[in-house]
């Protein structure tokens, strides 16, 4: 019986043959499952083929929809978005192939260039894999903000984006809350009153629409960067991307759950981050709106844990959910703190 890796190898050869009918001697080597990635199953490999008499070698990564999907996204959207971003100057992986409906790889998948560098969620911490000194880490943090501002400066009207990424059907905060709340309710086995109470507050305190809609990355944080020799080489994991409020990316970065990873004590705090963004983007940030989006981010993260718990309870052993208690606590405390804040 073929192993999953053997089946994938055969599927990749077939997919590559379909995408590149003029290529010969296709070979897939060193196929290995990568450890990280909750929203997709990632495999690294090297592909070789001959075309026009020349041999080509590419280091690639396969991103396939997991068996039980927790994050609802469409591989095709990710593919079209990355293709639209090619040539914008942003450090994003180049897209190669797509299996839209799992015809070759059993589940929808995209194949991207594997960029140099390593991901490290402790990038800004002294415990980071690269062992960067504090000045270097502050410099990377500031560089991240420049990158975020560059994403937000893109003219979304000029980008060829799929409709589901555009989702400009109403004020961004309401659109995103509607979407997330519907998913959270769908993932309940019994009512999650912690999430319902938070959603109630979020709905009662929706921020105004921003002056300008931008491309929101949706998961902008150090863990989704590749860094090589202290330099950012790629921004990954665009599956949450959509057109929306720039404050959403700021709020995500400031979510209570990520505080330990995103700041450098005494050197890089909330106001350093927001101030750097204001300078890089040339815009004024509405702090109250960012706080709303940070609570929304925590709500979204809690919803994802709820989905993972449901999948795990139903027998999906591929992903083990983190305990929900501490995350719910952070969410409720953030709501309570905001309720107690003077207008």
């Amino acid at each position, binding site marked *: 019986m073929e192993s999953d890796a053997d089946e994938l190898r055969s599927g990749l050869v077939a997919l590559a043959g379909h995408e590149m009918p003029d290529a010969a001697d296709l070979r897939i080597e060193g196929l290995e499952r*990568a450890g990280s990635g909750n929203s997709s199953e990632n495999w690294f490999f090297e592909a070789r083929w001959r075309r026009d008499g020349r041999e080509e070698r590419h280091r690639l990564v396969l991103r396939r929809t997991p068996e039980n999907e927790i994050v609802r996204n469409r591989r095709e959207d990710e593919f079209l978005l990355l293709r639209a971003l090619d040539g914008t100057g942003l450090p994003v992986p180049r897209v190669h192939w797509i299996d839209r409906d799992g015809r070759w790889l059993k589940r929808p998948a995209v194949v991207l260039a594997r960029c140099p560098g390593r991901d490290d969620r402790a990038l800004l911490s002294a415990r980071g894999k690269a062992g960067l000194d504090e000045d270097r880490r502050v410099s990377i943090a500031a560089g991240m903000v420049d990158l975020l501002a560059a994403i937000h400066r893109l003219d979304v009207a000029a980008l060829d984006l799929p409709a589901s990424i555009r989702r400009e059907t109403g004020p961004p905060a309401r659109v995103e809350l509607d979407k997330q709340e519907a998913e959270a309710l769908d993932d309940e086995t019994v009512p999650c009153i912690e999430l319902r109470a938070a959603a109630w507050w979020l709905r009662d305190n929706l921020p105004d629409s921003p002056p300008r809609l931008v491309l929101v990355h949706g998961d902008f944080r150090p863990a989704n960067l590749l860094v090589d020799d202290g330099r950012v080489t790629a921004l990954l994991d665009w599956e949450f991307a959509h057109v929306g409020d720039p404050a959403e990316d700021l709020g995500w970065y400031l979510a209570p759950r990520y505080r330990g990873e995103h700041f450098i004590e005494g050197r890089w705090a909330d106001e350093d981050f927001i101030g750097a963004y204001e300078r890089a983007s040339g815009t004024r940030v509405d702090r109250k709106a960012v706080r709303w989006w940070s609570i929304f981010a925590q709500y979204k993260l809690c919803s994802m844990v709820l989905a993972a718990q449901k999948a795990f309870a139903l027998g999906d052993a591929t992903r083990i959910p983190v305990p929900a*208690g501490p995350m719910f606590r952070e969410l409720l405390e953030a709501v309570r703190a905001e*309720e107690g804040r003077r207008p």
Partner: protein
Amino acid sequence: MRTTPEAAIEGVRRLLREAVGPELTSEQAVFTLRRIMAVLRETDWNDAGFALFRENEMLQALGLEILASRGESRPVDPEPLRAIVARPCRLDRFADVQALNDDYRRVYAALMAAQPGAKALRRLIVDRLAAHSAAL
């Protein structure tokens, strides 16, 4: 001496760390083991049942507070809340404690859905849930 759930899990963690971990070669397997260890470490195995029991007591106290309140915090239909707070929290079996918790969650969900404009009720619920979770 009786082996506590915590001690049993600690033994399992030790086996995973010392016997299983060094045998793993793929990055995916190491990643999965790390997640398993985190779940085992972050759960309070001795206290899990009691925590649920205490949560039911908090939900009961909150229900009594809501029933005694005036103004917009007062339920439009108080009967389901009145009925559930009358049930005893002290139960012998974990399954019964869990079932009571599920019932409380259904009652509160209906209460919240019935009064979306009741900000004082929302504040009270958020405050008590947050205070309870902070004390865990």
